[in-house]
């Protein structure tokens, strides 16, 4: 969603400092999904990641409302730092949840911004992978996917093993991802 007047991180940060409530909503819409994803990867726990993400946004909001950022263009970096520090603190000490005064805003925006794309991926990934595998006629390409994504072998090692150039390797992977995306977006997947 695009909002006029909030095109850059610096405009969002400045507007929040000036008391613009709409800018706070834009902040959530723009960064919540990615911050939650990063925390999910770090914690491996969706519920914990949600808690940490909400906490990170509350800290961010309090900070932006009270004091302008030294480098407002690095808004994402600042938020990332808060999220990572919260995760580190959480690893050290669990059970430190608390209720924040902005809970209502968070709930409203996070419900809305819950990733439809992730839902689509979750629902269609299995069928799309089947279509992807069926569409791969070359056994070497299948071996490449197996070696890279399942055995998690190193790219150089796999290239040597399958007698492939790095460029060919990149192409096979790139094409597989493009096909997978097409199958996910296709109705029949």
């Amino acid at each position, binding site marked *: 969603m695009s909002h006029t007047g909030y095109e850059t991180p610096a405009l969002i940060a400045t507007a929040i400092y000036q008391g613009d409530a709409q800018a706070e909503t834009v902040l959530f819409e723009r*960064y919540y999904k990615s911050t939650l994803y990063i925390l999910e990867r770090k914690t491996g726990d969706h519920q914990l990641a949600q808690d940490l993400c909400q906490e990170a946004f509350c800290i961010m909001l309090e900070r932006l409302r009270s004091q302008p950022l030294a480098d407002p263009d690095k808004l994402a970096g600042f938020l990332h730092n808060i999220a990572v520090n919260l995760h580190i603190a959480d690893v050290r000490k669990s059970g430190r949840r608390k209720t924040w005064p902005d809970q209502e805003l968070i709930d409203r925006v996070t419900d809305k911004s819950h990733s439809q*794309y992730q839902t689509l991926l979750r629902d269609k990934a299995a069928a799309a992978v089947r279509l992807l595998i069926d569409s791969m006629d070359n056994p070497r390409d299948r071996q490449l996917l197996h070696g890279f994504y399942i055995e*998690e072998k190193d790219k150089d090692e796999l290239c040597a093993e399958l007698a492939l150039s790095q*460029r060919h390797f990149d192409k096979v*992977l790139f094409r597989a*991802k493009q096909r997978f995306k097409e199958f996910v977006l296709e109705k029949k997947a």
Partner: protein
Amino acid sequence: MITEHDDDQIDRYLNRQLDAAAADAFEIRMMEEPDLLERVQLVEAMKQGLQKSQSTLLTPAPVTAKVMRFPQWIRQPLSMAASVLLATLLMRNILVPTPATVESTGINTVLLLENSRGTATAEFSGAPPYLLQLDAGLGNTANSFAVTLRDTTNNAVVTQLGDLQADADGWVRLIVSEALTGDYVAELSWADAEGAAQTRSFTLNVSP
């Protein structure tokens, strides 16, 4: 737009092969670029899907065939065309004697010229015929390509061929029958979407 380099970074990120600083920088980029985040989620979903289907992945692709009754088969457009072609060939065979076998050319050496080599000279050794395979770039949709191979010692044209097509992976191929020894430049040229002339040069050294 996501590039192959981005994809490489994504794979490294998902495989936790980036160091802490690079991972942080990548995550901040993900926060700033929604397309990158979507691609990461896509690749992650593909990876998880492949892990669940790993037994299928190494199973050879099944050859499926639909059995049709002969009248059904003959009614298909391609079958009809094939039947006409077969009849024509049979007639030709009766009227004009043809050689018993199709002529084929064996390849002794593949000369793979990739753009990733940059300006470095590619070294090859082997006998002719050569399969000269030039990198036109992934996604290059030019209608046709021309290739000129020159001997750099005297700038003589060894071979020149136009109206070549690139395959889906951006490779342009031709067979060179003449024996090569020494330094050469292979020049690949085409017209881009705006009609502007584009060229790519590859230097190579071939020894017998």
